[in-house]
């Protein structure tokens, strides 16, 4: 038999002015199972809390109901008080007679009546509450950072510097990401490589960081604190241990006309190559799709010239397995290329280039050593048109969002061009200038006012070639949509930033959700911007949405802080408000029939398969099992389960059912004894 204590708070006048608290307490005393019912001015005060503690001891209470403010306000307070008095905190519940009653209704009989109802409902709930205990989950203090761009680098260094192990996995042969391709960075115009390279080196040298480049994730299983990852190390065809990075192989390689990915196709590389001089690790890889030996079966020139015999034509992919406790996804973004734009010639005009190509032209380490020259004939362009929002904010192209970085880098591009080609004319077609950010607006102003970049507000309808010139047709909406036609030598498209190829597949492997554009989804748009819905997996950088460098770095540090917080304890403590699959006597063992419809509905991939086996090892049945490390307690599975085999602790079927019953069947208590 329950022994429930009811404590009605006046909250000064807040409740007391409209609800007859004494009557509520008196009425609740008449509810079967209630052995103690009192009212008090301020229940949350120390004397109020002491009343509860004393009553728990004096009356040997098995449940406590506090009729006061919203549980969202003081539930932790009262639960702690109960715990201090030796009562399991989950046997304490609050009835909200302030926000949901006294504050929203006039002083009247009806309002008091309603307060009694609300308390009575919670009494019926508490009667069915069960003691719950926090869930402990062990934590493996190693983080997996996926992606070696600036976000991944920052996250890895922050976590490593906090004293935890990090495994970094990068898909391409070197870390560095897009930032390593950039010339200068806005709004300071400092050299991208110069600020990035030391970080890259630090990653390579950090004793806490294990780096796997030219590697991809094969699978990720497990849950927060307890993931298992399989990493596929693609065959580099070079023994990394023996290779000294002398570069002889890349010089001697006869196949040299392969468009360089790093130079965005504007430069060439050999079949055995290091993507760029500052690459980390500075070890070449053989591009087997282009290597003569792999295509025709002979050559092996690199093997002959290698002073340390590091070439391994027979190397195979290897799988590395690791236990990890948290994941930072920092896989970055990609951009749309010129061939996405029929109106700009489908990429047919060599001098219509994208922003990343311009970066390579402007970079001192680029194919033109930093001189702005046309890809078609190497001439310096006298007029350059920059087109912002190429694809972005364009529902017709299926990219409705703003790519965010283009306004700033286009201003930078125009500025760099004006610096490098004296007398050159720079036009920017734009929709709006979005320069929110520290020193950003000033930067754009500088481009306009000091560097004479001409901003034309309007869209470009067409680019076509006429007598060696690119004719840019557009409209100036500030001049009443007047047609504008500019003869340009080069056109630079600020193409939309989009999710990486394979982002969807990766998200599925990682069990994180993604938006309509395949950017990874944060757990909450405001309050959980670095978390994903899968506990223990965090986001950093442009894989979540287009971001500039400072934002990516900030988010990376944020993710690293989350990981470090997680790793600061040996065990993870979680609220026990989670779903559980029932167990019952043989031969049923559980009423779960193993249909796993719940598994599909669970937003957290928290439902696993569990095999119930007899003592002889024979499989009896396969049932659902809720992983307490992953379950967040939403209860969607409970409503999906036909056999009621899953129940939610704290909001169990019995509890909510009893609440409905109690609410609608006013007892004698309401009559006011």
């Amino acid at each position: 038999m329950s022994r429930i204590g009811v404590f009605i708070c006046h909250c000064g006048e807040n409740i007391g002015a409209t609800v007859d608290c004494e009557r509520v307490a008196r009425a609740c005393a008449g509810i079967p199972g209630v052995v103690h019912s009192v009212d008090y001015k301020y229940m949350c005060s120390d004397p109020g809390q002491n009343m509860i503690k004393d009553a728990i001891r004096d009356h040997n209470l098995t449940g406590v109901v506090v009729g006061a403010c919203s549980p969202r306000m003081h539930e932790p307070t009262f639960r702690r008080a109960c715990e201090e008095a030796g009562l399991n905190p989950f046997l304490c519940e609050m009835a909200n007679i302030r926000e949901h009653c006294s504050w929203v209704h006039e002083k009247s009989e009806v309002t008091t009546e309603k307060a009694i109802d609300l308390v009575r409902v919670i009494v019926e709930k508490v009667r069915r509450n069960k003691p719950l205990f926090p869930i402990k989950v062990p934590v493996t203090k190693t983080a997996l950072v996926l992606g070696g761009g600036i976000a991944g680098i920052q996250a890895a260094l922050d976590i490593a510097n906090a004293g935890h192990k990090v495994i970094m996995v990068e898909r391409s042969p070197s870390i560095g990401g897009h930032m390593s391709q950039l010339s200068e960075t806005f709004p300071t115009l400092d050299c991208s490589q110069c600020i990035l390279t030391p970080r890259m080196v630090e990653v390579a040298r950090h004793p806490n960081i294990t780096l796997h480049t030219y590697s991809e994730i094969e699978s990720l299983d497990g849950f927060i604190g307890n993931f298992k990852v399989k990493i596929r190390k693609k065959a580099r065809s070079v023994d990394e241990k023996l290779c000294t990075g002398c570069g002889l192989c890349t010089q001697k390689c006869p196949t040299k006309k392969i468009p360089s990915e790093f130079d965005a196709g504007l430069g060439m590389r050999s079949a055995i190559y290091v993507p760029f001089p500052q690459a980390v690790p500075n070890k070449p890889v053989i591009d087997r799709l282009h290597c003569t030996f792999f295509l025709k079966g002979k050559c092996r020139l690199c093997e002959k010239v290698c002073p340390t015999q590091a070439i391994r034509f027979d190397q195979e992919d290897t799988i590395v397995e690791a236990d990890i406790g948290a994941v930072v996804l920092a896989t970055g973004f990609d951009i749309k290329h010129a061939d996405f734009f029929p109106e700009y010639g489908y990429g047919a005009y060599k001098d219509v280039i994208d922003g990343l190509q311009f970066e390579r032209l402007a970079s001192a380490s680029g194919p033109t050593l930093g001189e702005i020259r046309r890809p078609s004939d190497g001439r310096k362009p006298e007029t350059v048109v920059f087109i912002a929002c190429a694809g972005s904010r364009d529902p017709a192209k299926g990219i409705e969002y703003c790519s965010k970085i283009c306004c700033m880098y286009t201003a930078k591009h125009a500025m760099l061009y004006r610096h490098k080609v004296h007398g050159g004319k720079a036009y920017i077609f734009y929709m709006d200038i979005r320069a929110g950010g520290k020193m950003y607006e000033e930067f754009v102003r500088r481009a306009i006012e000091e560097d004479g970049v001409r901003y034309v507000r309007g869209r470009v309808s067409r680019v076509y070639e006429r007598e060696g010139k690119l004719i840019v047709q557009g409209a100036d909406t500030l001049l009443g949509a007047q047609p504008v036609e500019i003869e340009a030598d080069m056109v630079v498209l600020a193409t939309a930033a989009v999710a990486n190829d394979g982002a969807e597949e990766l998200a599925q492997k990682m069990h994180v959700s993604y938006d309509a554009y395949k950017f990874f989804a944060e757990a909450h748009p405001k309050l959980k911007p670095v978390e994903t819905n899968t506990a223990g997996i965090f986001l950093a950088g442009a894989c979540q949405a287009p971001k500039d460098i400072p934002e990516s770095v900030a988010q990376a540090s944020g993710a690293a802080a989350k990981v470090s917080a997680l790793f600061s304890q040996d065990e993870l403590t979680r609220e026990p408000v989670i779903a559980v699959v029932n167990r019952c006597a043989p031969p049923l063992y559980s009423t779960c029939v193993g249909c796993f419809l719940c598994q599909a509905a669970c937003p957290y991939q928290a439902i696993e398969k569990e095999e119930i086996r007899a003592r002889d090892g024979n499989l009896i049945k396969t049932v659902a099992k809720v992983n307490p490390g992953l379950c967040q307690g939403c209860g969607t599975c409970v409503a999906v389960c036909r056999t009621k085999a899953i129940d939610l602790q704290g909001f169990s079927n019995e509890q909510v059912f009893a609440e409905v019953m109690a609410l609608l069947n006013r007892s004698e208590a309401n009559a006011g004894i």
Partner: protein
Amino acid sequence: MEMETRLLKKEALAGLIEKINAAGRKIYAPVRVGDRDEFRPVDSASRIDLGCIQTTQSAKEVLFPRVERILSFSRRDGAMETADPDLSILPEVVLFGLHPCDAAAIGSLRAIFTWDTQDAFFTARLERLAVIGLSCAEADEYCFCTSVGLGPGATDGSDILLTRLASGDFLAEILTEKGRELAALSPGLFLSPPAGADKSSALAVVEASFTREQVRDRAKAGFDEDALWDGQALRCLGCGACAYVCPTCACFDIQDEGTTNRGVRLRCWDSCGFAAFTLHTSGHNPREEQGPRWRQRIMHKFSYMPERQNVFGCVGCGRCSRACPVDMNIKEHLIALLEARS
């Protein structure tokens, strides 16, 4: 009481129904409902389907409703009060057109409900019940009354048994005091029968395939023949259709419904065919599979009832076989049981 035989002209039926109604008695008779026949309250003879071979459901609801309130409770001044239903308000009922198998089934039900204790609800209803039976002029392939000791013209359970003659008139056998009372409501309608009037020529022919005693002995001997019962039950769905249409199945469940303040205790039909019927709180189920449940059904009707209540639990009406969604044919299964070597 000495049996009396009278003639009820076909035109007189309407008058008989009217008189019974006028006497404040509620009449249930077979009525065509959609593609089925069912017992329904009638107030005129024209609604009655006299040609019906068998109603889908039996008439047992008149004595044993599918849901019956047996107790009410409420909380007053912190204490629980209980109240019994008022049985004195139950109406006087006449079941009209009950075939001999169904009429005989009343005896089986009575045996169950009065075996150890007198079931107040059942007996109160039974006291208020009179039966005007109707011999079977037709039978179908499911009928096997003659194999269980009955027949198309059997009088067991009827207070008056009507047999429709070739002329359309009814030969009325007034069998009991209750029957005489009914006839007395309209004495002018019950005429002297013509000389040589004989109901046997007006009865359906139902070939006997076995005797119930044979089944009793064979079933008892075959209790442990799992393969036999399992094999027969393999296609059985485990639903309760057979039990619920059966005129003698009397299993019930007790359910309390209500809230903290008031509630009722209900008796409602149950069936030994259901998996949960014998489920123990421990999780153990002595009849885990359908085979033993099927065996139970047969054993109860042919072995346990004759043993304990001295009456058989099957009247050969064939309803269970007709209603079964998967064609579990009891007659066929009983024949198979007898033919199987033990």
